[in-house]
């Protein structure tokens, strides 16, 4: 028997907030109890493995984002710049440096110091960021090196390149396990690890099912509004039953919204994809600029690379947990992370078709060369090769000094005017 409508609608928001609060509570408590905390990153967090050792997981990208959403990033960034960081360094890094230099005092709670840092190389800045903590706290830093997409050599998941990469990652996983055992004094529990993998499998399937619901016209959620919460919960609760339960509820709610014909953006007129990230220091404004034209983001590369690399079909083979974990990490690095950030044209092509997209917004952010460097080129490629209109705007993730409202608004408005004309001629 399904739950009554009023119970289903709005669950996502309530439950998302509850889970977020719970995470902050856990972090703040760890400051007192000294429970081991691992600092990890969204892309390649190794959450399934670290959970097996009961680490509290701090995601500094999320804490930096939240500082910006609370409108306080400027002050934190300034602290980092006073310490010596250049105005041209990633704002996520600087917001966190500001946070660490304030002894972890965050608008939402307190951040414990790291007992361990696990970083992937999917963003090279992750490594430099980790080195800051290494200098400040002398904590161990483990780089989980995930070789990325290398064109046709990585297309074959039975090929020599994939096998070489997977062997390397498996070897590193064993080294990471040893390190975790040393830090926590616990033995690695393979059965527990398997349970976390099983939960991640469930989450991945549900996450993709949720993304699929947005193929519906009108779209039941906005990929840059609700989508950001989904990404957050997917990180914080990856591999845990609460995480899978949450996505079960989200899926139910989306199905209910579709049944009732509810749209994320009332009077939906334009269906968009976001390539890159949004601007958190002007989050509401960013969304409003598009929504006021009836523009809804039905998908984003952000939901792929910052959503855990859960590509359709993502599944761990539970009969060979470690080996399979290594293989999935490599595949995620190929397709989910580096593929969707550096070679997104094929993915875009498919999404434009399947999600009935009218246009693409490419948002370059100064903080993030990882995501933004070649966006003007992809925009041009999609326009010339696929006749899909694109808008390119620039600001930042978290640095409010880089938001130029009039400029962004002018470009967005001009884009929608052109999009309306394009839509009329192509009858998309």
């Amino acid at each position, binding site marked *: 028997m399904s739950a009554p409508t009023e119970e289903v609608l709005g669950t996502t928001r309530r439950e998302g907030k509850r889970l977020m609060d719970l995470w902050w509570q856990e972090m703040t408590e760890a400051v007192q109890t000294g429970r081991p905390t691992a600092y990890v990153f969204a892309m390649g967090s190794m959450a399934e493995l670290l959970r097996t050792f009961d680490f509290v997981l701090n995601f500094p990208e999320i804490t930096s984002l939240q500082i910006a959403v609370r409108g306080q990033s400027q002050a934190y960034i300034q602290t980092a710049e006073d310490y010596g960081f250049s105005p041209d360094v990633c704002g996520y890094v600087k917001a966190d440096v500001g946070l660490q230099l304030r002894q972890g005092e965050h608008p939402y709670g307190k951040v414990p110091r790291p007992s361990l840092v696990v970083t992937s190389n999917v963003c090279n800045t992750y490594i430099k960021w980790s080195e800051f903590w290494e200098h400040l706290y002398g904590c161990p830093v483990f780089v989980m090196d995930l070789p990325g997409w290398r064109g046709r050599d990585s297309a074959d998941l039975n090929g020599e390149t994939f096998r070489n990469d997977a062997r390397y990652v498996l070897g590193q996983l064993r080294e990471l396990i040893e390190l975790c055992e040393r830090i926590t004094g616990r033995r690695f529990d393979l059965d527990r690890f398997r349970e976390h993998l099983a939960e991640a499998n469930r989450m991945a399937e549900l996450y993709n099912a949720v993304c699929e619901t947005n193929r519906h016209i009108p779209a039941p959620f906005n990929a840059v509004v609700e989508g950001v919460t989904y990404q957050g919960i997917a990180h914080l609760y990856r591999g845990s039953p609460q995480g899978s339960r949450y996505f079960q509820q989200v899926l139910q709610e989306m199905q209910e919204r579709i049944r009732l014909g509810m749209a994320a953006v009332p009077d939906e007129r334009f269906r968009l994809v976001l390539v890159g990230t949004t601007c958190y220091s002007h989050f509401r404004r960013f969304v409003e600029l598009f929504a006021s034209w009836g523009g809804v983001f039905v998908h984003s590369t952000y939901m792929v690379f910052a959503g855990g690399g859960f590509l359709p079909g993502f599944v761990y083979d539970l009969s060979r947990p470690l080996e399979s974990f290594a293989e999935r990490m490599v595949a995620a690095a190929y397709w989910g992370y580096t593929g969707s950030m550096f070679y997104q044209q094929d993915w875009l092509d498919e999404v434009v078709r399947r999600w009935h997209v009218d246009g693409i917004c490419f948002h370059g952010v100064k903080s993030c060369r*990882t995501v933004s460097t070649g966006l003007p080129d992809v925009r041009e490629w999609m326009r010339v090769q696929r006749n899909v209109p694109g808008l390119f705007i620039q600001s930042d993730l978290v640095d409010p000094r880089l938001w130029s409202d009039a400029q962004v608004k002018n470009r967005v408005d001009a884009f929608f005017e052109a999009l309306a004309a394009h839509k009329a001629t192509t009858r998309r």
Partner: protein
Amino acid sequence: MDDLERIFDDLRALVEDPTFPAVRRWLTENPQGKVVGSFQVFFPEEVAHAAGMLPIKIAGAGGTIQVRQADARIAAFVCSIVRSSLELALSGRLDFLSVMVVPNICDAARNACGVWVRSFPHMRVETLYHPHNAASAHAVDYLTGEYRRIGRILEEIGGRPITDEALRASIALFNENRRLLREVYRIKREAPWLLSAVESYLLVRSAGLMPREEHNALLRRVLELLPHRPTKKQDRIRVVFEGGFCEQPPLDMLAVIQNACYIVDDDLMIGLRWITDDVPTEGDLWRNLADSYLNRSSYSPVQRDPRKPKAEMLLRRIRESGAEAAIVAAAKMCEPGLEEQVHYSRALEAAGIPHLVMEFEETMTVFEQVGMEVETFAESLLFQFA
């Protein structure tokens, strides 16, 4: 004009010529030859050489060209070397490249590799993933496999297998090149008045712009002539210049610095000097290359190796070169360089080593400010050490 001056004039002309004249000459002599470009920092050029190809270094264009087309393809807040390297290709100046390899040094370069892939469908563009977990017991195995992958690509494009015999000969050739460059750096350290910073830079940079056989001959000739140079030792401060691992400071900026200081060591074009000892020519040669990258090598902000903490490595470079101070530079918009600069300057501060922090861009043309800063810095130190 004496021999040395003529050589350095020619080298300067070569380094500042965006048409790659030595490559074009090689192609005239080897009409079937293929050229492999590699972006900063390190690429095992021996592999390309053993495949019968000419490996060259793509390290930006300095201020020698106008960047137009690349600006339409790359976001505004990206360093200059990424844009100007792309511009070289978009403007047809690299039309001789059959293969372009971009190592995974940083976010901007990896992402820009995607732009190259989309822009040049007829060129083979590859990202080379060097290990960032250099201390892992599995890194050498992995990198051996990755180098073999690159080897397979070059075999396919070059149309001939890379035999052990060829690879051994190529490694020996490049070992010799690195040995000669180490000799250049020994002179810089021991008798910096014999060789200016600009001249030593030209000697290194040109290695990536011409066939290594020629470059070795050139280095031998220079090393023969240098001890006889009539230049006299002057009372100048001895500094290490750090921050030239990727984007290159303009030659005139080095000239301004050398007016006030002796640069006794640096990380300029470190990729061409990355391997610090001979690569063994016995056993599994691919493995030897991988092992040398990881275990017989220098350091840079874009390689993570906990066995070589970068600030400590810089302090060592200063100590071993007998420098009294350091210039810690970073290229504008260079995320890893700017981040490392913070740690470098704090470590120098803690060690009580005087240092000057600066930012540069390869396209800079005005150096009064830099000149003034360096002069003031050097004078204050001369006074202090007097």
